């Protein structure tokens, strides 16, 4: 047996570029800051701000200091007042900017929701013709109505095609300009309101109630109108509120202590920060605002909105923020083999010859039989013959007198009949003398039966090759030919193989390091499935999977304390999509699937699941990193403010003024300004998300602790010192 090694790179028809390893995000457009300003000011309304306890406290403090500054005006007092108000405005601005980006997208979507007139048919039944049509506004369509849409018209609402086939332009929703085919029955039946039918005529049964269409939901999602706090956000808010109360206590109880200290050191003079009545109100509020976690308090909701937004930019719609959070927690990924792990189609990768057959002859026969085979498998055979065996490319049209034998489910083989030996033997050395040449290619049993019928006796090598290919998870295609009246001959076997997408193994290795188990789901038999699973490097596989098996697998994983993510598009995927913690429905799928999942991928790209997990993780990391940063900042602020207030009473405390700040006033103002400015400085980070490098928890934690923990301790020392140096130049401040 000659096994020909033809490990040239297989041709990848729809080769996708390797996705970028860093989960990026949209950049911050400086103009957005300006356009969001009115919104930011509108959010100063205490009834709105109340939902953010940390910033609400800052606002109350701002009001208080404004009153105090009015009573005892000074440059210092008014500077503090201005910067406290700016702190609140900056926080609102962060949220407004995050929302602003969504609003722009929503505007574009709204344009797709033009007022269309639907052609409702009454009493439609399958196959019925000549039914009465009513023209009704699209907004009045209810679930169960049946409408007709023809080429050039907009689909009036979400629904399933119940009759006909059409090409539909879905660019309004997906941004993808290539039209897609929608047809009745099967998993390609869902149409979305606002998309345009380009050809033919379809009958659609509406599956939505008015105002609850996919487009409506999409608009409200990207606008953040229906935004609810996620469980983790709620928990973090509780922690931040508790920290705020602790600092409120620390600052409020400081006053009697300060009065006492001032009283026992009567020699100490009064200053703008401390007099016989204790610490001045303005300074107390400044201390409080500097200590409470304003940085994270200001950016928390922007981080959440931006996380959803990053998904939208990748054409994924999450139905809730909760789903994005769950994505970060996913510990088991169920991946469909076809389209996710492997390229959609099998490819010819090798030719195995039978006894006494020249490889060249087998390649030629394989090429001939596949010339008219327009399936991807067929094309890949032609490509293999050309690239692996140096056969010149031929088009089916060259052989004008060829009779093509098409593949049917009954014969399970295809091929070609050429009169006079065809062009396969231009030198005329053909021993058959130019009789009829018949070439057949197909399923082992069918082709071998054809050979025997025509007097041939296939050798044992064919059977061995077939078994070997099957065992390796491939699909064998036997090639045979018959020249003239000679007995038919089995020439060899084409090895068709599922081709794993490039880079998948590295991706799965990465997943493993992140603690995520990957399970491949396939309808293949266990032998094939095992071979592909091993090649792709997934942790486990589910072969001959039925929807019930899938459901059972999800439940078993969940019972073991794992969170499961999966993709699906068919109606029979719906229960599993609903059961999974993260269920990503393909936009090309059925309405039932889209209803059941908690995310919809508009690109219908199952690989997206991996990116979704990364975005979920990035969202949580950003939240944790900025919380750490915010709390770590407090250390430097204490070193700025405590000596500034009390060095007058106890000069020894001046030793705490490690930054050597200019004066008590500049020190306190510098801390307040730093506190406000850092919010603006971190807005881009909050919107973009912190750098996320997939990897194990320990490495990730070490890195983030270093950057945001240690950085959070050091940064304000530097920042406050710089601001203080500048403030020292301002006359009349100290």
């Amino acid at each position, binding site marked *: 047996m000659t096994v020909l090694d033809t490990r040239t790179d297989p041709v990848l028809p729809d080769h996708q570029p390797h996705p970028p390893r860093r989960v990026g995000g949209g950049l911050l457009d400086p103009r957005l800051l300006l356009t969001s300003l009115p919104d930011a000011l509108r959010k100063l309304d205490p009834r709105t701000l109340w939902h953010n306890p940390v910033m609400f406290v800052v606002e109350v403090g701002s009001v208080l200091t404004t009153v105090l500054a009015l009573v005892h005006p000074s440059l210092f007092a008014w500077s503090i007042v201005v910067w406290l108000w700016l702190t609140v405005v900056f926080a609102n601005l962060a949220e407004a900017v995050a929302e602003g980006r969504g609003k722009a997208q929503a505007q574009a979507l709204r344009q797709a929701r033009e007022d269309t007139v639907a052609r409702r048919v009454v009493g439609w039944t399958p196959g019925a013709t000549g039914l009465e049509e009513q023209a009704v506004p699209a907004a009045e369509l209810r679930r169960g109505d049946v409408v007709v849409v023809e080429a050039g018209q907009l689909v009036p609402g979400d629904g399933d095609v119940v009759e006909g086939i059409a090409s539909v332009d879905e660019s309004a929703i997906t941004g993808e300009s290539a039209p897609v085919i929608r047809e009745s029955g099967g998993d390609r039946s869902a149409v979305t309101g606002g998309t345009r039918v380009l050809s033919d005529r379809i009958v659609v049964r509406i599956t939505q109630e008015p105002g609850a269409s996919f487009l409506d939901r999409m608009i409200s999602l990207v606008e953040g109108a229906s935004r609810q706090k996620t469980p983790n956000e709620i*928990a973090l808010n509780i922690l931040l509120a*508790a920290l705020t109360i*602790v*600092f409120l206590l620390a600052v409020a*109880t400081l006053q009697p202590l300060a009065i006492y200290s001032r009283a026992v050191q009567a020699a100490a003079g009064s200053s703008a920060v401390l007099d016989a009545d204790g610490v001045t109100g303005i300074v107390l509020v400044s201390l409080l605002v500097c200590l409470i976690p304003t940085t994270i308090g200001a950016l928390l909701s922007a981080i959440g909105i931006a996380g959803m937004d990053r998904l939208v930019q990748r054409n994924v719609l999450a139905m809730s923020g909760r789903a994005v959070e769950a994505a970060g927690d996913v*510990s088991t990924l169920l991946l469909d083999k076809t389209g996710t792990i492997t390229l959609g189609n099998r490819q010819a990768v090798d030719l195995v010859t039978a006894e006494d057959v020249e490889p060249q002859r087998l390649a030629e026969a394989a090429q001939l039989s596949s010339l008219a085979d327009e399936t991807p498998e067929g094309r890949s055979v032609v490509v293999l013959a050309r690239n692996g065996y140096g056969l010149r490319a031929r088009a089916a049209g060259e052989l004008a007198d060829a009779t093509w034998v098409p593949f049917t489910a009954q014969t399970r083989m295809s091929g070609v009949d050429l009169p006079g030996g065809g062009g396969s033997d231009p030198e005329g050395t053909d021993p058959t003398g130019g009789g009829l040449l018949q070439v057949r290619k197909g399923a082992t049993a069918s082709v071998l039966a054809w050979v025997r019928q025509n007097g041939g006796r296939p050798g044992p090598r064919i059977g061995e090759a077939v078994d070997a290919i099957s065992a390796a998870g491939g699909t064998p295609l036997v090639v045979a030919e018959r020249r003239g009246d000679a007995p038919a001959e089995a020439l060899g076997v084409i090895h068709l193989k599922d081709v794993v997408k490039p880079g998948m193994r590295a991706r799965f290795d990465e997943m493993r390091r992140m603690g995520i*188990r990957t399970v491949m789901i396939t309808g293949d038999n266990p032998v094939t499935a095992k071979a592909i699973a091993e090649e792709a490097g997934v942790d486990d596989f589910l072969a001959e999977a039925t929807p019930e098996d899938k459901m059972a697998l999800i439940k078993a994983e969940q019972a073991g304390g794992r969170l499961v993510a999966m993709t699906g598009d068919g109606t029979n995927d719906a229960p599993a999509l609903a059961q999974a913690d993260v269920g990503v429905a393909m936009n090309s799928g059925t309405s039932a699937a889209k209803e059941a999942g908690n995310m919809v991928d508009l690109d219908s790209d199952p690989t997206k699941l991996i990116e979704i997990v990364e975005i979920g993780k990035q969202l949580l990391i950003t939240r944790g990193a900025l919380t750490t940063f915010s709390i770590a900042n407090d250390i430097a602020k204490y070193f700025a403010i405590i000596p500034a207030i009390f060095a007058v009473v106890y000069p020894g405390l001046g030793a*705490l003024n490690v930054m050597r700040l200019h004066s008590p006033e500049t020190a306190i103002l510098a801390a307040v300004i730093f506190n406000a400015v850092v919010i603006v400085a971190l807005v881009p980070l909050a919107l973009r998300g912190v750098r996320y490098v997939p990897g194990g928890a*320990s490495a990730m934690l070490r890195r983030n602790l270093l950057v945001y923990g240690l950085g959070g301790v050091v940064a304000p020392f530097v920042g406050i010192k710089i601001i203080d140096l500048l403030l020292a130049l301002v006359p009349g401040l100290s």
Partner: protein
Amino acid sequence: MSTGLMSTPLAGTTLVAALVLLLVLVHRPLGAHLHRVATSERDLGVERFVYRLVGVDARAEQSWAAYARSVLAFSAVSVLLLYALLRAQAVLPLSLGFGGVEPSQAWNTAISFVTNTNWQSYSGESTMGHLAQMAGLAVQNFVSAAVGIAVAFALIRGLARASSATLGNFWVDLVRVSLRVLLPLAFVAALVLLATGVVQNLSSGVDATTLAGGTQHLTGGPVASQEAIKELGTNGGGFYNANSAHPFENPSGVSNAFEIFLILVIPFSLPRVFGLMTGDTGQGRAIALTMAVLALAGVALANLALAQAGGTVPGAVGAATEGVETRFGISQSATFAAATTLTSTGAVNSFHDSFPAAGGGVVLLNMMLGEVAPGGVGSGLYGLLVLAVITVFVAGLMVGRTPEYVGKKIGGREIKFASLYFLVTPALVLVGTAAAMALPSARASMLNSGPHGLSEVLYAYTSAANNNGSAFAGLSANTTWYNTTLGLAMAFGRFVPVVLVLGLAGSLAAQGRAATTAGTLPTRGPLFVGMLLAVTVVLVALTYLPALALGPLAEALS
């Protein structure tokens, strides 16, 4: 005395090294024994008798709310009984002729012993007769310690169990811990103490003529038995006013070292129970290691503060040794002071008020850590576990997962309990101190003025709210104001956190267990220990720094 001073660094290091070695050796078997106590299915005969007597079904498990109700009911009854006993002392036997205890002091003392604080606004030898000491205070020394351990058991069960509605049975935990752990250990410890010279009798004392010619009344009594549980249960309430500085309670360096060991042994063994019950001893080790690092830092700082201030010249004139027992010298005193404030013991063998400012600051800071290094029996472990929950919450996010601790998700409900927990003590300390400093009458109790006076008041509320019970001295705390407010601080400082811990435990127990993967935040390595340390220290520093700045810090830096 001079030899003691000169060999301070060496003696100090040897003492600490010996303690570390001993604790490393003992924590495993004692942890295993505590684990058996917490999980055993069998009851001893005497235990069955007790259950029948009080009508408890030993096999019936309690929900967190029922567990909390039992703790509160038991403690309330304890307070009432102890209060009644103290008030009625005059008409009861073995009173040594002392009258009934005055109401505000009786309330303060009752709360103090039931909450495992053992703040003493009275002087033992001149207030309490033998009956009050033995049937009142000593009993509470046992059961209040047992209550703390029981609550720690309940929290561990919350973390160890999955999808469970119950946390065990308080009455069973209470009885078992008292009978199987504290009594036998205290018995052995008392024998050792007797051997080192601690007294044990029921005499009403003897009168001695001093060198100066005056008469001094030396009260005897069941000191060794009290002393053993006083340290073992991190109680700290001394038989005598001078507490462990009194030669009858703590006669020598040997007895002193042994008492420090007794203070630390149970708190350092409990993390082992956590490890064993969750099936991952590494988790327990990380907690114990965190406690140890904090404790060693506290001990080192206290030694340093005392030794530094006692440099050659001041040392020669006895500056840093003011308030330090000459029997012990600096290192024995500093280490004892650190151990007693790091645990919620509050026993003293020297006067913290007389320490150099930095030394006073260190013992104050030790308590402000929230008594978690290693803290009181039980309370130290549950306190640190709550901090671990908060650490995991912030750090867990940074690995890109919603946070979890030993497989338990830390969500809104858990964070609510944990946040309220760490709010309680600072609120009591700061509000109490601020109120006292604002009131002229309360200020009048201060011995010193200036920052030192402020430290005295801050120390008193810190000690009470953290259930430590040690006194800075200097403050005349036996006034209606301090008896009442410190009593309230002790009561709230003990029972509000207990209820919150049990709520947290209930919420954790009800959850399933999330699978541990490579993506899970590791909570057993040095990285986690470092984070837990940072969170503990930073939370404390941020909360108390303003107050500390005007007290010990102002004094130390002037």
